[in-house]
């Protein structure tokens, strides 16, 4: 879907036909009324979309006196990185003044295992569903997919009870399990569809050669499905990093992920509002998914399309 459309090229011109007349599409005028409207509209919309990012960056580089005087769109007169330092290491949430760094490391400690574990589980699941279908598998799969649409609120409290029963409520491990659970529908769908699209002969040949469930998975399926793993990683890293609800419900303040801590810093009612620090903190939190997004490019688009298009 992400391909750039290539204009239909003119058919090869033979010597005798060349005399008949010009062939191929008429060359377009570069500056036409249509193009001005088209690019003008796109440009205006693009400015609108970029504005918040610009405001974030600009505000985070100003000092507070300058913010009080100027407007939010004007570029900083005097660039200062103090707000960034403060947001990272000194900003307060309640009594704790360690800055966002704690939230950042919590988020890392949540995201990395959650991504690895959820993808491992979902890929094996998808593989079982695609190649080793057993009776009843479709029923479970349907429930799973339905679960993706059910509002999380319905399952919030039962999971609190379950985690409390196994003693993981409030810590990082509990949250990791929760992320694995809620990532499962979409990832399983992703992997199932991918493995189904691989040629069945491969699987059959491996079966004839005596490979078993895990043998085929590790020796044939895994090496062939690197792209879909990358898509899944992108999907999960951004999804888990950006999560707020599960973080706030299933962890204690010590283990709050970055998003929760950011919200607590910015929306705390105590003290003077330091907008520059707030914006630096906001940018810091948005940086990880933004980097993932700008690096992954087309794969990100593929990920959301895969997540969106039903099986």
């Amino acid at each position, binding site marked *: 879907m992400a391909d750039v459309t290539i204009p239909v090229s003119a058919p090869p011109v033979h010597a005798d036909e060349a005399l008949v007349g010009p062939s191929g599409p008429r060359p377009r005028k570069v500056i036409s009324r249509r193009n001005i409207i088209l690019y003008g509209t796109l440009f205006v919309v693009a400015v609108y979309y970029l504005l918040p990012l610009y405001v974030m960056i600009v505000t985070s580089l100003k000092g507070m006196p300058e913010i009080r005087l100027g407007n939010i769109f004007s570029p900083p007169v005097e660039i200062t990185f103090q707000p960034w330092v403060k947001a990272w290491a000194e900003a307060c949430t309640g009594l704790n003044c360690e800055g966002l760094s704690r939230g950042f490391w919590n988020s890392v400690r949540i995201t990395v295992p959650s991504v690895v574990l959820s993808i491992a589980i979902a890929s094996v699941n998808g593989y*079982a569903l695609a190649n080793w279908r057993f009776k009843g598998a479709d029923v*479970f799969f349907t429930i799973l997919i339905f679960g993706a649409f059910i509002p999380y609120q319905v399952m919030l*409290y039962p999971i609190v009870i379950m985690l409390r029963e196994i003693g993981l409520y409030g810590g990082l491990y509990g949250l990791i399990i929760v992320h694995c659970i809620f990532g499962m529908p979409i990832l399983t769908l992703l992997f199932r569809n991918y493995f189904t699209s691989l040629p069945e002969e491969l699987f059959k040949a491996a079966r004839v050669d005596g490979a078993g469930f895990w043998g085929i998975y590790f020796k044939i399926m895994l090496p062939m499905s690197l792209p879909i793993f990358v898509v899944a990683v992108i999907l999960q890293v951004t999804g888990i990093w*950006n999560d707020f609800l599960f973080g706030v419900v299933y962890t204690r303040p010590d283990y709050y992920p970055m998003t929760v801590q950011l919200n607590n810093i910015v929306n705390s009612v105590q003290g003077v509002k330091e907008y520059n620090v707030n914006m630096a903190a906001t940018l810091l939190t948005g940086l990880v998914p933004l980097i993932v997004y700008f690096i992954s490019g087309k794969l990100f688009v593929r990920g*959301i399309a895969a997540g969106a298009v039903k099986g």
Partner: protein
Amino acid sequence: MHEARRPNPLFRNLSAKIAAIPMILTALVVFAGGTIWTIIYSFTNSRLLPRENFVGLDQYERLWSSSKWIISIQNLLIYGVCLLVFSLVVGFLLAALLDQKIRFENTFRTIFLYPFALSFIVTGLVWQWILNPQFGVEGIVRSLGWTSFSFDPLYNADIVIYGILIAALWQSTGLIMCLMLAGLRGIDEDIWKAARVDGIPMWKTYAFIVIPMMRPVFITTLVIIASGIVKVYDLVVAQTGGGPGIASEVPAKYVYDAMFLSQNLGQGFAASTMMLLTVLIVLIPWAYLEFGGKKRG
């Protein structure tokens, strides 16, 4: 498809079944079990801890007589309808513009989609800052000389939900645009050629040929937007915290507040069951149309 050709003895699929245990547990215990548990306990008067003291529909009566819940539902309706309409229209228009074989298509798409990579918390906080009446848009227009100019959606209870809508649209139209673009690219080039040969104007081709052909894309997009709408929570928490007063409360926040802040579990369960009901009203007809029809055909 596979079973028909391959005999399926229990032992041969044992590893597959073991591998599927996490999925089975999630589907049965968490998704199905958790949902049923919540529905059952919504009929109890649980407060700090869940109790099996059944009180019939009391919680629901209390829910629907609570002004906070009524406002939540109204907000969800306004937010939902506006988001649905605007994101579909804007998303489609942007996709149509990008589909004109333009240059820098990738750049434009990257720009339109990047907000989608950001969390709702980040989105909410940025727009809270831009809509700040003192320093943001209102302050700037006033400093230009138009002193009576007023644009403070986040501090005006009547229009606060539209302030949230602006942020939500900024965050999510890129996704809709991408889905629509994929749909447009799926349309056969010959159809465009045929329309051009027949001299049909471009807007007519879109309105009467292309859009009807993209019906499945529209339906999928609709379901994605709709299921996102009901879940809206973080954005409100970050941007307004439900304020001013209770003017921008939404159901998901009502549930969280009841369960974890005001020790009113029964209310939370009842409210979340109502949310489930809303989703099912959207989901069941869709699932029926999409999957029910396919099996028969």
